[in-house]
């Protein structure tokens, strides 16, 4: 997937920007995300309903995918059904 593209959830308000991603499909709330939002939202899968947090980065265990959440929602992010985790970032002091 091209870095910089924005993907929208088909079940909630979640939007992400792709930092980098080898996979072709990212799911939110159990359903694939797309660059355009469907006219009617699908149903949130209860197993993928932990929510997304604005400004957090989400990664898979192998670091083949990194997404930035640019709009929060109720669904959680996954690839092939495996949930993505929030990336730990060591805070840096403000320098400018």
């Amino acid at each position, binding site marked *: 997937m091209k*870095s*910089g593209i924005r993907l929208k959830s088909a079940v909630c308000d979640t939007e992400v*920007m792709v*930092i980098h991603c080898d996979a072709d499909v990212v799911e939110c709330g159990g359903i694939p995300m797309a660059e355009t939002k469907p006219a009617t939202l699908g149903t949130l899968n209860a197993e993928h309903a932990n929510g997304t947090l*604005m*400004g*957090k*980065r989400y990664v898979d265990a192998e670091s083949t995918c990194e997404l*930035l959440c*640019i*709009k929060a929602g109720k669904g959680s992010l996954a690839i092939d059904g495996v949930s993505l985790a929030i990336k730990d*970032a*060591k*805070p*840096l*002091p*403000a*320098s*400018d």
Partner: protein
Amino acid sequence: MNISLLLEMAAEMFPDRVGLVCDGQRWTYAELLDAARGASVLIRQSGAQYVSLLDESCEAAVIALFGAALAGLPYCPLNYRLADGELAALLQRIAPALVIGDETRVMRIAGSQGHIAYSRDKFAAKALESLQNRASVDENLAEDIAVQLFTSGTTAAPKAAILRHSNLLGYILNSVEFGSAGEDEASLVVVPPYHIAGISALMSSIYAGRRIVMLPAFAPTDWLSLIETEQVTNAFVVPTMLARIIDTLASGAETDISSLRAIAYGGGKMPLEVIRKALGMFPDVNFTNAYGLTETSSTIALLGPEDHRAALASDDPKVQARLGSLGQPLPTVEIEIRDENGQVLPPNETGEIYVRGEQVSGEYRGKSALDDGGWFPTRDAGFMDEEGYLFLSGRADDVIVRGGENISPGEIEDVLLTHPAVADACACAIPSVEWGEAIGIAVVLRDMKARPTDQELKDLIRDRLRSSRVPDQIAFLQDLPYNEMGKLMRREVKKMLVD
């Protein structure tokens, strides 16, 4: 990728939070985003190829930066301190541009170049008016050039350094945690808008959700009183500003600056004496030294608050010395020190600083300075210690080559500054028939101190360094020339010595 994302996210998360204070006017993030969106319509309809700012720091800097990004055009703020001729030549290179700021001057010096000029107030008003036409103009989120900055160009025509959206966004996303600032946090911005630090300060503060308090022109008393009235928590200063703030406080200024939690500094070499004094005067403030260049989208290495305290508390000379260092590279940036043949040097050996990372553009209009491996030669000379702390010796171009021996001006200046009568010093290369280059020094004396003899200064350097470091020419000056960012203008000193 587009840097407009930073303001969009802040406006989504904190629509009603005040994001900017300038001249007593307050702007929420939602208002700033509306103005930037309106500005993008105005910009797109104008037919301009660039968006420029010819003004001091003001709200227009934020609106123009993000308005240009949304319109898919480069933002190119210009230095209003330049002489008419120099400025007209730069305006010609970005024509036709939509120029915000001194419209009278733009028309007077570049009236035939096809620019559209607005005063800052007219621009903000027109941007908000244009918002209603937003539906008629598409946003252009092309992944292209976000910012173009002209280098100061002391030897040749100024170079147009280019920063792409991916460079700037890479820097901010990697170094700032979104929304991490509390609603009570405010950052005092006093660096000029045409400097990379002035641009990165806007983006970092907005992404962190930290209110920007703008001070268009620096004066220590204004700086101190804004800290008090706006309850500022964070500030960035250049070394000369910090020295003047300390002097003003020491001479009895009664300002309550207890809100201040962090001071970052950079832009030029910080004298050890100044930072030591500052640490003593503000024991509860976190100090951070930031090192970066235009071509690297701002900070690439930093010396954090813990490093400052450790250096001050340590008995180990190696740890103490780090107070004069640039700190360690950011986790997302790689730094190498190389010799003239491009070989990577081991710790503690001086060479040229090379840097690589997402935020590093290393690119000018029409030409990239990156090598095949993606490394940018900074033209700064320095070394790294065993733990990766970076020390700056000066510009690679400033190294004095005397009879084949490389001499860093910094080592001579550091010794001169230990003399009780010396307030400031500069060493530079002067032409020599015998050595190719020889050493010239310019010295500024402390008030009320007797002038040392030339021989006394020569002996000091010979004793502390070695005979090859002894200057051939010594001049005593009232002041050394610094630019507005606190950078010593060595070439000007050299010119004075040679003439």
